[in-house]
Structures are given as C-alpha cells and as structure tokens.
C-alpha cells in the first residue's frame, strides 16, 4: 500500500521540481518585463511554425536548408531578454544566482577579464529540452532560453553552419547581433 502511495508522491515531487525550474526562469524574465532598459523577444511555437513554413517555401533544396528546417521544427520557442544599458556583470551574477539552483548543466563557459558567457542545458529523456545562454559584460546583458526537443548534434549544427539562409543578415554583419561584441 505504501508503495502505491510513494509513486504518485514521487511523481508529484518531480513535477513540482520541473515547475520550479520554469518558474525561476519565468520569474527572472517577468521581473524585468516592464523595465525600459531591457528589450524582450518571445518567439512562440506558432512563430517557429511560420518560420519553418517560410523556409520551406523559399529556401532551396540544399542540405543546409533541410538541416535548418529540421532544427526549426525541433525548437518550440525562444525567449530573449537583453539590454545594453545595464551593468551586465551584475545581472549575470543575479541570473546565475537564480538559475544555478536548478537542474541546468554547464555546456560552455567563457570568462574574460570584463565579460562572462555561459551556455547551459536542461536535459530530459536524453534530449536537450532547453538551451540557456547568459552573457554579461560591462554594458551588455543577454539572457536567452531556447526550448524544444533537440540533440547535441542539432546544437552543433547551429554552431557550425555559418551560411544558413538569412544568417548573413544577422551574424557578424553590419546589422550585428545582440550577442557579445
């Protein structure tokens, strides 16, 4: 009888734990939602579908486009919180203080004299459910959370493909990205 009670309790505890992770991220996002210094981007699953539709109808039949299409379909949503008007190091520390309590594994850390960059992943069932990127430097802070069901190969694809359609507009071109300069 005790065993029958234990299983639901464990499941309940697990669900609370997962919920707590989401809440921590959500709290951090919502805390600065109305802060004028920050710009916020939320790419919904619907937008991901639309992006995949655009790629399908406009991109060529080359391998890169196909790979990108597969990757886009695996991503469920992206949230970005960024600012170039705040002390990025302070916010980096604050974000890390919030997130390290959770079940994120470090993927890559780049620490310079005046900047910090960390990639973290949250895995479930052998798949990456979330890729988190936190970047902070003197006047720049970026927090990115990409949700979905992707593998490390997919992430590798994202890191390697420099000629994916449309990337030239945002990569290291004139328009620039919100990333660490």
């Amino acid at each position, binding site marked *: 009888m005790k065993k029958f009670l234990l299983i639901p309790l464990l499941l309940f505890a697990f669900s609370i734990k997962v919920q707590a992770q989401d809440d921590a991220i959500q709290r951090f996002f919502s805390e600065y939602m109305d802060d004028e210094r920050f710009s916020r981007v939320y*790419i919904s699953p619907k937008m991901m579908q639309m*992006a995949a539709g*655009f790629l399908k109808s406009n991109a060529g039949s080359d391998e890169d486009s196909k790979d990108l299409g597969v990757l886009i379909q695996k991503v469920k949503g992206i949230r*970005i919180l960024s600012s170039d008007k705040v002390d990025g190091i302070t916010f980096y520390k604050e974000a890390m203080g919030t997130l390290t309590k959770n079940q994120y594994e470090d993927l890559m850390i*780049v620490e310079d004299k005046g900047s910090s960059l960390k990639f973290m992943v949250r895995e479930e069932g052998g798949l990456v459910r979330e890729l988190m990127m936190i970047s902070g430097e003197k006047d720049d802070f970026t927090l990115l959370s990409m949700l979905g069901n992707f593998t490390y190969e997919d992430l590798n694809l*994202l*890191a390697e493909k420099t000629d994916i359609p449309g990337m030239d507009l945002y990569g290291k071109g004139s328009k620039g*990205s919100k990333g660490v300069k």
Partner: protein
Amino acid sequence: MNQRIDELLDKYWDAESSLAEEHELKKLLVSAEGYSDEKAMFLGLREFSNEEPSLKIPTVIIPIKSKNWINWAASVAILIGSAWGWTVYEQKQAEQEAYMEVMQAFALIQTNLSRGQEEMAVMNDLKYLNTTNQLFGNSINK
C-alpha cells in the same frame, strides 16, 4: 385659266415655281381640259401617293435582360480575389518576419558559441608544439 396653267408650267419647268404655285397648278389641272401629259405626271403622282400602302412593320419588343448580376458577380469575384491575395501576402510577410526573428536568435547563439570555439582555437595551436623545448626553445635560443 389655260394661260395661267401655261404660265405656271413654264415657271415649273424653269424651276422657279414656289410650292404654292405648284399646288395651284395641280388644282387648275384637275379642272382644265387637255394637258393629258401634265395631268398624268402631276395627278398620277397624287394617285400614287394615295395608293401608298399603309403597311406597318410589326415592332417586336424584345426585353433585354438586365446584366447587372454579371457586374455584381465580377465585383464580388474581384473583391474576394483581392482579399485572398492580401491575406496570402500578409501571411507571407508574417512568415518572413518570424523567420528573421528566429534567424536573429540563432545568430545570437551562433555568435556566442563561436566565441567559445575561438577561445578553444588557441588550444588547437598548441598541438603543433610537441615538447616543452619547442614551446620555450625559441626564446632561449635567441
């Protein structure tokens, strides 16, 4: 009377008679004797005109069907076509914007991932230096 008839005939043949004079001439010819040729011409014409058949061509009024519905149908078709075209265009625009947003996010990740890889490239260079002597030898030799 015959003198007047001759006078009027002369005027007629000289093309100088008025309509009233021609009318008078016709009247005089009716009551005059002789002038058979003139009577045949002037009075014959009157008889011909009397015998003119009073035929009337039946006029059939064919009701012309109103073609307004075609105009309406064309207008509605154009309206629907325009609305559909606009919707498709808007959808494409929205898809493109979504795609660009996603690419921007990917670019952000890629830029930062490549930053880490650049840092690792320094380590990559070290593999060509096999020994400690090679690593520090140059400065010693100098």
